[in-house]
Structure formats: structure tokens, C-alpha cells
């Protein structure tokens, strides 16, 4: 009885496992392409995840869409355009450089330039504030004594 039950359980498990991943097993090369492309696409429902990572309903639909378009022979660029036409540049984790994304791409460099300019101004003003160290004759005599190996008596 126990054995029958165990076998039954095994069969049930095997069935459910077999139903889980039909698409991945079917064509590993295609699946790799799907994952590679969808890793660069944002899931709109859970915005900090890529389509590849997300298990949201829409993400699964869109992954299926990508897969079937690839099966139909579409190139990666064509599929990316398809997504952008519907969801905008926002779906791309690598958005194109254009006027609306200028701040996004150039902003960090602009901030760096501002920082560097600030640093230059600060260094220049500091140099002005601190007079260059000048040696008095007695300092010089002491330094020479030290260099000669003497003990360099305390001045005065």
C-alpha cells in the first residue's frame, strides 16, 4: 500500500515538474537569446526588475511575446523597437542618447566638472591664504648642522 502510494506520489510530482518548463527545454539556444534580450528590458509592473527576472503576469506575457517573435525570425533590434513603440524608451535599461535623455547621460559628467572647478577654486584660494614657508638664517644654520650629522643645538 505504502509502495503504491509512493509511486503515485512520484508520478504526480513528475507530471507537475514536466508541465513547469516546456519552453526552456525546447530550444536552449533560443531561450538564451530570450534571456539575454529581456535582461536589458525593464519590467513596467515592478520597475526595478528586468523582464528576465520578473515573474509578474505582464512580464511573462512579454517574454512569451519576445520568444514567439524570435521564433518568427525577428532580430533583437526589431523586437527592441517593438517594445519601445509600446512602452517608450523607459523599457530600455540602456536608453538612447537624445535631447530628452541629455540630462541623464551628461548630468554625471556635468556634476564632475562642477566638482573639479570647485576643487580648483578652493586649492587656489588656499595657496593664497597660506604664505610660502621661508627659512630664517638661524633655521638654515640648524638644518645644515643636522645634515652634517650634528645634534643641531636649540636656537637660543
Amino acid at each position, binding site marked *: 500500500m505504502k509502495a503504491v502510494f509512493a509511486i503515485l506520489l512520484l508520478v504526480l510530482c513528475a507530471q507537475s515538474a514536466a508541465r513547469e518548463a516546456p519552453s526552456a527545454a525546447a530550444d536552449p539556444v533560443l531561450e538564451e537569446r530570450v534571456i539575454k534580450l529581456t535582461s536589458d528590458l525593464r519590467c513596467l509592473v515592478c520597475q526595478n526588475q528586468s523582464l528576465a527576472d520578473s515573474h509578474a503576469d505582464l512580464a511573462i506575457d512579454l517574454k512569451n511575446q519576445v520568444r514567439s517573435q524570435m521564433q518568427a525570425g525577428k532580430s533583437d533590434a526589431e523586437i527592441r523597437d517593438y517594445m519601445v513603440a509600446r*512602452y517608450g524608451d523607459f523599457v530600455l535599461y540602456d536608453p538612447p542618447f537624445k535631447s530628452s535623455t541629455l540630462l541623464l547621460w551628461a548630468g554625471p559628467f556635468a556634476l564632475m566638472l562642477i566638482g573639479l572647478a570647485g576643487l580648483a577654486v578652493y586649492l587656489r584660494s588656499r595657496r593664497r591664504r597660506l604664505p610660502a614657508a621661508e627659512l630664517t638664517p638661524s633655521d638654515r644654520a640648524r638644518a645644515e648642522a643636522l645634515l652634517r650629522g650634528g645634534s643641531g643645538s636649540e636656537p637660543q
Partner: protein
Amino acid sequence: MKRFLPLGIFLVLAVFLAAGLGLNPREVPSPLIDKAAPPFRLPQLQDPGKSLGTEDLKGKVWILNVWASWCVACLEEHPILVEFSKQNVLPIYGLNYKDTPEAALKWLGKHGNPYTLSMEDRDGRVGIDYGVYGVPETYVIDRNGIIRYKRIGPVTVQILEQKILPLVRQLQG
């Protein structure tokens, strides 16, 4: 002068952060605005034998409202749509998104039906064409079949009165 510098920096940061809090990251600008509404032909919810397509709606200003019986936020806007539909300003067509007809019809029976007609988009394919990602979504489409406005998330009275109605009046000329 110098001692106020940190305060100044703090104020600038505070202004930026406050402005950032007011933004809604879910409101993604749609690339579909001012583009032709993606064509579709779908079975009608109430009468699956008949279909309805974008072709049939050329020449009128209409609203496309994406809804589903499983969508909680839809309940929020639903009474507003029901009220609005009674004014007969323009037809509201429903896109029943990834739903079953039984659940959808039951939902309409329970909460009221503001739609001139609803279409069934069971696999969500038309939804993808319209860039739907957060039901409910609402589109205003003009006489030439161009999308003029898109709202992601529930329509509020404020949005209806301040955004949608003025636009519809202008489009209806």
C-alpha cells in the same frame, strides 16, 4: 557668510527631494500619444459572436477604458465612469483585459456598466499593443483614430473634469 553655506546646501537638497517625492515613477510617458491607435478586432463581451474593431469607431471621439474584474483599482474609478456615462458625452468602450467572460459579466452586473460595449482581450495581446501595464488605463481617441490622451491608473473626478472633458469638447469641436 560661510556659516550659512551648509544651510544653503541643505535647502537646495530639500527642494530637490520634495520635488522628487511629488513625482510618480509609475507615470511613464506613453510613446503612443498623438499616434494612431493600434488597430484591433475583438469579440464583444456580451455577444462573443459579434466583433468590434477600431475601424468601426472611425469618425467618433471615443474613450477606451481597460478594465478587469480582478483589478482592484478599477473599482475606484468605476462609479465615476458609471456617472459619466449617464451624461452621454461620448461613447466609452471597455477593453476587458485578461479576464474570463463569466467573471467580467458578473462584475458589470454587480457594479454597473458604463460601457457602450466591452471587448474581450483574453490573452492581453491588444493590451500589449496599447502599452498597458497597470490596469485601469484610459485612452481618449479622436475622430481620425489618433490617441490624444492616456491615463494610467484610476480616473478621478478631477482628471475627468480638468483633463478629459476639456479635451473631448475640443476634439468634438
